[in-house]
């Protein structure tokens, strides 16, 4: 009887704690995002700090140098790329709404009709889709920008938190470990090490790959003189985080923009070739080096992850769904195998 009451009480306490944690997470969502983003940035930068430490720098000096270089790069990007990017976005939106591109869209529709007659072109409604996407994209960007809290957190709090995560991360980890009961301590240490090994490689690989594809894509489009090359490059890089669809999704906006602006068929062929080359470089050179495909995710999981991400967190959720699924897969499988190995399962 006592045992049953005890179990029931424990269940109630756990339930209460979970409700309180969920409520806090909901209320502190903004703060939580800052912490998660800062953690991810410092986690990705951690090996650089370790490498510098191995070369004789103190952890604080290494952190300060990385911090300065990293945020200088971001500042330069914000200074140079962002105005151009917003300019391009607004011009594109204005151009579409002014009706000046109607004839070109019709031309593109005619082109599709003549080459692929089985497609019901009226039901596709290229212009409507493009307009609603652009309105959505620029609304999202404006929503982020107009939110003063986001600006402050992005400019001030995130760098501040990243600095301390990067410098004191190891001590924080040690402190966390010191609270683990003796019985589970060795097992937890082993599990954390395994997760760190797999996840570190995976996340760093994913983001390096996205950066390489984004930069190469933007350069290729700049050379081909395709409009909005920077936005499309950034989009291609981020889309690359989604397997199967990503590489194609990167080329589609470039082709659409060329069609809308009355670009020639040869330009479209060049765009396709350029993106094929970028993908070739990514597959043959970047991926083997960064080992970003070290976490195998079943295609079905990828589809559901992308759908769930898009449904709950919008555009950002869509793009970050696959890395998030990778994190969940690695963490849960390592915990499971760890518990099994240490005979707690």
């Amino acid at each position, binding site marked *: 009887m006592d045992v049953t009451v005890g179990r029931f009480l424990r269940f109630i306490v756990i339930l209460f704690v979970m409700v309180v944690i969920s409520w806090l997470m909901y209320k502190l969502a903004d703060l939580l995002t800052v912490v998660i983003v800062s953690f991810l940035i410092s986690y990705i930068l951690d090996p650089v700090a*370790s490498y510098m430490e191995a070369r004789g720098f103190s952890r604080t000096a290494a952190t300060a140098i990385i911090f300065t270089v990293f945020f200088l790069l971001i500042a330069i990007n914000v200074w140079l790329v962002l105005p151009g990017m917003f300019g391009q976005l607004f011009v594109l939106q204005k151009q579409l709404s002014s009706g000046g591109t109607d004839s070109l869209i019709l031309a593109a529709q005619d082109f599709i009709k003549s080459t692929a007659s089985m497609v019901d072109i009226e039901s596709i409604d290229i212009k409507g889709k493009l307009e609603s996407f652009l309105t959505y994209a620029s609304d999202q960007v404006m929503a982020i920008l107009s939110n003063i809290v986001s600006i402050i957190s992005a400019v001030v709090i995130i760098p501040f938190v990243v600095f301390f995560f990067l410098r004191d991360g190891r001590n924080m980890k040690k402190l966390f470990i010191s609270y683990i009961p*003796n019985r589970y301590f*060795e*097992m937890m240490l*082993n599990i954390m*090490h395994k997760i*760190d090994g797999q996840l570190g490689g995976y996340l760093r690989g994913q983001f390096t790959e996205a950066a390489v594809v984004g930069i190469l894509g933007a350069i290729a489009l700049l050379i081909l003189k395709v409009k909005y090359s920077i936005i499309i490059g950034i989009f291609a890089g981020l889309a690359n985080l989604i397997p199967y669809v990503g590489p194609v999704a990167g080329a589609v906006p470039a082709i659409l923009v060329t069609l809308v602006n009355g670009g020639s068929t040869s330009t479209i062929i060049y765009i396709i070739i350029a993106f094929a080359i970028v993908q070739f470089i990514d597959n043959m050179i970047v991926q083997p080096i960064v080992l970003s495909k070290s976490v195998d995710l079943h295609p079905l999981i990828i589809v559901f992850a992308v759908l769930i991400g898009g449904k709950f967190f919008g555009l950002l959720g869509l793009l970050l769904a696959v890395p998030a699924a990778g994190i969940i897969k690695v963490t849960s499988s390592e915990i499971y195998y760890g518990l099994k190995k*240490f005979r707690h399962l």
Partner: protein
Amino acid sequence: MEEDTLWGNIFHKKEKQSDDIYTLLAKVPIFQDLNKRELKAIERILHQRTYNSNEPIFNEGDTGVGMFIIIEGRVNIVLGKDYKLLATLSNGDFFGEMALLSEVPRTASALASIESQMLGFFQSDLFGLLETNPRLGNKIMFRLAQMIADRLRFSNLENQQLKIKLARLEEKSKEKKVS
């Protein structure tokens, strides 16, 4: 004046405790070649833990991922379900160092026989050290390799002697059969 004494006491106490730990670490064979700065770096990555009397530190068959050094206390190394005592270790002794090299099941259990303070040094920390401070990591690896080479040599000698003894016994039993 009083404040000075208070702060002085706090720092003095902490300093003394750290000095004790460095002295203790310097006696552990795998840390033997290290200077004070390197010992400080090691001390930063070690995990300090307290075990109650009769609390297991690890159990036979558990996967081991590191070694333990006794700062203060007493540990019994026991075997089997009936806890057959193999050795009793005390301040400055260490055990479980083989697990630093390979994740194999522990061959015996370790039990704290009184409340004990331990330092844990784990495979993940050693790997981390090899990345962040390869010089220091290699010194430890070399010492570890030496220790295992010594043990292997000892085992080989023992093995040889046992083989000779076995051959003699076989000869004797043959002679008995013949006669």
